[in-house]
């Protein structure tokens, strides 16, 4: 799902808006990001194969249907095979459909639709997605809960529980960070850092 414009990363970050609910802890963000990466890559292949038969409107339909089908399949698979992860993030997975559509706006106008290119761009978008989500998740969890990596043992592969660190008790945390307004504030700060970095290097 390629984005040929120079605002690629800005659009990637914007696509995060529906998904801020899941960024309130590192583990939720990481688990969700991994599923999002998988969905992005898997969905990009049938999308690329089908796109050049359709005009713009048809392409929108194809993208929405493909992403919806892939996300629904991912939900079923997670519910069956990664139950602990599903308990943590399952309620938010349908939001990926909206996010996927936002990410693939560029595909609607693309002239070239080579499947491998789509898949690679999908991987790249997905990885940036994970990075941004995990940064948000770490910041919000640290400020809001005073901990990091709580729940790590529920990820597939069972990482050891000693990775979970608590720095101060939950009562002391700044609760706003883990509520929805805090999510938007955090994302705004992330944008600010990114813009500052860009203008500095311009």
């Amino acid at each position, binding site marked *: 799902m390629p984005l040929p414009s120079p605002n690629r990363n800005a659009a990637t970050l914007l696509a995060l808006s529906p998904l801020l609910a899941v960024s309130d802890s590192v583990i939720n963000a990481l688990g969700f990001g991994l599923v999002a990466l998988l969905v992005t890559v898997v969905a990009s292949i049938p999308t690329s194969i089908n796109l050049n038969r359709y005009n713009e409107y048809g392409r929108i339909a194809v993208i929405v249907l493909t992403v919806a089908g892939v996300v629904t399949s991912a939900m079923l698979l997670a519910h*069956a095979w990664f139950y602990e992860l599903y308990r943590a993030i399952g309620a938010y997975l349908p939001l990926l459909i909206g996010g996927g559509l936002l990410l693939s706006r560029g595909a609607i106008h693309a002239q070239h639709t080579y499947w491998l290119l789509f898949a690679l761009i999908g991987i790249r978008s997905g990885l940036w997605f994970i990075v941004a989500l995990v940064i948000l998740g770490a910041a919000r969890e640290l400020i*809001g809960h005073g901990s990091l990596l709580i729940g790590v043992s529920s990820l597939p592969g069972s990482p050891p529980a000693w990775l979970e660190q608590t720095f101060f008790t939950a009562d002391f945390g700044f609760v706003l960070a883990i509520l929805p307004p805090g999510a938007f504030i955090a994302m705004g700060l992330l944008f600010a850092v990114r813009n500052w970095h860009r203008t500095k290097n311009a």
Partner: protein
Amino acid sequence: MGTRPDALANLSTRASRFRAATLLVAGIIGIVIVVAALQRLTSERIARNERLWLIARLETLIPPALRDNDMYDDRIRARSRDLLGTDSSWVYRARKQGAPAAAIIASVAPDGYGGAIDLLVAVDYDGLVLGVQVLKHRETPGIGDGFEPRRSSWLQSFKQRTLDNPEASRWTIRKDGGDFDQFTGASVTPRAIIKAVRRTLEYYRANRETIFNAAAQP
């Protein structure tokens, strides 16, 4: 695959539009078939995951010394909207050598801050609370979720309580003149849970014989 920019120019003809529409419909049918097949394939494993999760919860509530039956299968439906907060919930029975030992009642506190709170209340045969767990809730994180085990041991304060300990008027938060702590900044949530636990105990007292004598409805 490939680069065919002139393919786009041809899409305005009626034949190619028809072809595109047909492909789209075929695609929709294909997706529906794939998802439906996947749903069939995973439904058994999903049901098993849900069941095992609930069984694990049931088993932590009642110490193994008190039971030797399969609580999940030895369950009955309970219908009491007034006392259990919902029209249809379950009571899981624990027995030792055939004799009734304890029960776990699934009830609902409908007046939580963010909506209904699903509870499991475990009582021994005489109505002494063995434990309370929250299965699902939508309380405000950081404020209303102070009952969660990772945040505090508030739910433990229900253990060893009965309908008479404390007396009825003290079955509420300290702020209202009762015996139960509330967690910082929240009173709606603990009030809702305390009321629901008490109503569950009343349900148990009123229906104890029925609970243990009814046939299992797995």
